[in-house]
């Protein structure tokens, strides 16, 4: 077989769960990641039943320290920081997930087309990707968000513009490698159409590294959304988005709980996603599973 010559992460997405031993999927960091991610997903979905207070209404004295009544204290407008932190998941998680899904879709399709057809199509797509990647992600995202105006939807567009080239480059490399394989040459020999070969015989074989990368990137995108909001280019007031909450906290650093709560929320979720991403990469590693 030619498996040894394949990139270590290549493989059919449908086989993902068959790979690796059960222990690879249940390592302690991954279990931590599952639990924390599950907590935040539950928080995002059911926050209206979990949060003790309305996140945008004044519910107590301003700048109260954490107490039994207000677990994470109150902010400069007397809003409950715990409730706002929980509601923050409802903005950060879906936006990051949508940004990743859209970036993966756009990047993968363009990368696959560039890799399979080559020539000027490849040159044009990849030069655009190169130009985009030449800018530091945060600076380009800031520039795009600033030109579109503040708001979470515009932040989402900015992130997609910054992030798609990563997947285009990744997918192009996969396609270039897989299109030399025998089953692809066989499909060409029996007269299958280009799109059919690409999307039926090549792309499914290329998805594993994309999925692993996307998982790892989810945490980065959560941080990028928060960064844009921190800079005033993301969430608009009074949206309890974590980055915007940290901006509020920075104005009151003698009341550290205002910034600490959303900061801690981000820390836990990004850590959890990174653990899951790392575990996923290890579990799906062809060479690793052979050992």
């Amino acid at each position, binding site marked *: 077989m030619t498996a040894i010559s394949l990139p270590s992460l290549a493989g059919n997405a449908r086989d993902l769960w068959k790979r690796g031993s059960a222990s690879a999927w249940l390592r302690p960091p991954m279990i931590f990641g599952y639990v924390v991610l599950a907590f935040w997903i539950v928080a995002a979905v059911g926050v209206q039943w979990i949060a003790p207070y309305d996140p945008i209404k004044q519910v107590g004295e301003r700048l109260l320290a954490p107490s039994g009544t207000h677990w994470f204290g109150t902010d400069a407008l007397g809003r409950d920081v715990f409730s706002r932190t929980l509601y923050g998941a409802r903005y950060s998680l879906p936006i990051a997930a949508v940004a990743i899904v859209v970036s993966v879709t756009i990047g993968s399709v363009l990368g696959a087309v560039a890799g399979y057809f080559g020539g000027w199509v490849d040159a044009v797509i990849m030069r655009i990707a190169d130009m985009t990647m030449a800018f530091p992600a945060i600076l380009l995202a800031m520039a795009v968000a600033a030109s579109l105006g503040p708001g979470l939807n515009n932040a989402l567009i900015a992130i997609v513009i910054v992030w798609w080239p990563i997947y285009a480059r990744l997918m192009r490399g996969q396609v270039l490698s897989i299109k030399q394989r025998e089953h692809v040459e066989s499909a060409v020999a029996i007269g299958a159409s280009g799109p059919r070969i690409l999307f039926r015989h090549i792309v499914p074989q290329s998805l594993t590294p994309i999925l692993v990368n996307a998982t790892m990137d989810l945490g980065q995108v959560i941080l990028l959304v928060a960064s844009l909001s921190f800079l005033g280019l993301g969430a608009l*007031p009074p949206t309890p988005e974590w980055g915007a909450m940290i901006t509020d906290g920075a104005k009151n650093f003698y009341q550290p709980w205002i910034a600490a709560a959303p900061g801690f929320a981000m820390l836990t979720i990004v850590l959890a996603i990174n653990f899951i991403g790392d575990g996923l990469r290890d579990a799906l590693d062809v060479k690793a599973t052979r050992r």
Partner: protein
Amino acid sequence: MHTKQRSTRFKWRSLVAMAATATLLLTGCSVGAATTAVAKHDLVIARAMDLTTLDPDRGYCDTCQIVFTALYDRLVIVSPEDSKTLQPGLASTFTANADNTQFTFGLDPAATFSDASPVEPKDVKWSLERLANIKGSASYLLAGMSSIDTPDAKTVVVNFAAPNSAFLAIVAASYLGIVNSDVASEHGASAAADASTADTAEDWFLSNSAGSGPYILDSYTANSAVKLTANPNYWRTKPTFDTVTLKEVTDSSSQLQQLQQGDVDIAMQISPDALDQLKNTPTVTTAAVDSFNYTYIALMPGAEGGAPLADVRVREAIKDAIDYDNIVKTLVAGYGKLQGSPIPNGFEGSEKVALPSYDVTKAKALLAEAGYPDGFTISSTYPKIVAYGVDLDLQMQAIQQNLASVGITLELTPVDFSQWADVIGGKGTPITAVYFAPDHTDSSQYVQYFGLIPNGGYVANFASLAGKTVNQAEVDGLTTALAQTGAERTASYQALAQLMADDVNILPIVNPQLIMAHASDITGVTYSPCCNVDLGALGLTK
């Protein structure tokens, strides 16, 4: 807790003393020698600065007021003890004729510029004409000036076409500092009618000054610092400090921290919340003093999306739906007051206007009457800045909550100040939040800026209240007030304040107290309605 607190002034002092000692040792001088180390006094002030220019006739900002006052003396000044009293400045005598159309200033023979040349009538004429002709933001202060005569070597006569009883107060404004015309002209400055295009001195003023104030400009680095040094030829009492540095420190928390550490001697924009942090700091003195500054929201039916605001009942409903007391408590920890009209508390005319009150029931009834029983959605773009301790972003979020209770959905878009200025200069925004500090001590400025009069402030451009952008009663009232003095003028300004309050397009939200926080050994830190803080009056306890 604060044993490390030593101001930079003392650090410099120590350095100078050490250097002097070292010099004495190296040169073998005896202790009894005549050489004496003179203490060098450097003052550092932390401030979020809004400077874009240092040209005294082009600048128009709160920091400009401080810097211009230090660099350029005016003909008359406001008494530090009583803001309603004017004192001699460069002019040792100043009089107005009976109908307030002619003002005569007799220059003090001792007055000199920083290059030791005398201040002459031609400099006064040139400076006032340049301010008027450069057509900058502060040029409105000289609206109506018809001519300036210089009949002799020490007299200046300023003429107006119509009565202007506010002029002597206006002359004390920091923007009316007198510039050395010979020096400035050498570097491209012009006072001619085409000065707005012919004058090329703005860049020169970024690194030089040509005034007769207690300080001269040493250096300016945008977004970093303005450094002033004492004017060696100052014609009045020389300033205590050898240098004064205004250092850019944007947020209140950092200002507080640097003051506590002794990195700065005065923090100019400490938040009221910080007062508690400073209570137990013996080396720092704090005081909350009444100010004439205020934040307000402007309702502009003429702006894109502002149609519902054309109905005065809707504007009244918005006014009644705001919980002012709670906002004062929340935003400035109670260190502030309510204000009834655009003429601020303490200014002539503000005395009889009722303060706004919170009445949700009345607001809902007014909205229903106006055809909006379920409210409506309206947008607001405003600058995300902290003005006089009031965070405009928090202010608007508090108002957003209040308006939600009567069904009005307020969509907030905080933007940088420059972006906001673009919006205001372009399509406008239905509701915005801004701030105002007086330029001088006369109430006319509030009518000129906020009243519905021809060539009024930006608000008038988008007001279109009931289809009109001019309220003739305000135009006539201002003309009358400027021709009056004493109790009659007070009555006229009271009527104007009520008229502007009844327009319901400017809603003052907070009249905050100023928090003065400085090293305990510094004296003279007082608030001036014309000039913010007079750096020349700052001193040290003996």
